[in-house]
């Protein structure tokens, strides 16, 4: 069973990103949307956690949410795939289920 996890809160704001990563089964995917896109930026205090989790999960970040916040695509952690809304739709169909973390 492959699951797509979506997270929409900043890792600085609450522990959702951290919880999601700790509860994710291997070969799951995590899609960061809205304020959660902050998670995939280089040089933050969460960068190391994201980088080390990349060996277990595929990670995606929604491009329009990065751009809205002035977050440079060049500063996204390597290995995190930057996707658009159409890819978001594809991801939901490619996985068996979706868990939306609130």
């Amino acid at each position, binding site marked *: 069973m492959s699951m797509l996890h979506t997270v929409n809160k900043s890792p*600085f*704001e609450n522990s959702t990103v951290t919880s999601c990563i700790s509860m994710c089964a291997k070969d799951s995917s995590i899609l960061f949307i809205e*304020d959660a896109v902050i998670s995939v930026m280089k040089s933050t205090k969460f960068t190391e956690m994201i980088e080390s989790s990349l060996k277990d999960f595929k990670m995606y970040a929604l491009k329009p949410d990065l751009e*809205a916040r*002035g977050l*440079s695509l060049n500063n996204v952690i390597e290995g995190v795939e930057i996707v658009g809304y159409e890819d978001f739709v594809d991801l939901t169909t490619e996985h068996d289920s979706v868990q939306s973390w609130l």
Partner: protein
Amino acid sequence: MSEEGIVKKFMYVNRKSPYGTIYALESLEVVLITAAFDQDVSLTFTDDGVYQLMKDQKTDGIGMKNFSSTYSALGDYEIKKIFIDKESLEERGLSVSDLQELVWEDEDEDYAEKSSINLVSRAELSNIMSQQDIVMSF
């Protein structure tokens, strides 16, 4: 009460990223209203609030209004005291060069543009905050 009315020291503390919630935009609205009443207004950006001032925000993709250019009008409303928490920037791998430049014009010096931005530590913020009459958190 004097003719000028009472002037109080208002500080607005901005702690959230823009667009994910309505707080950043609502704060900006209240700040402009307060300034219109000739009050002594200062702004603090701390925690995820520092993202509100990021340069190059492009909101076409999310279909929301880009209000980031409004911050540059703060100087015209005589808002000259903008405090940015240094530690919040550092935790996020950001520096002041990632943020918009905000200035005000000094009438006494032939309208010279002066920076409104003050980089401060949390200890300094604590001190500045304790001198306020009213602190509102967004």
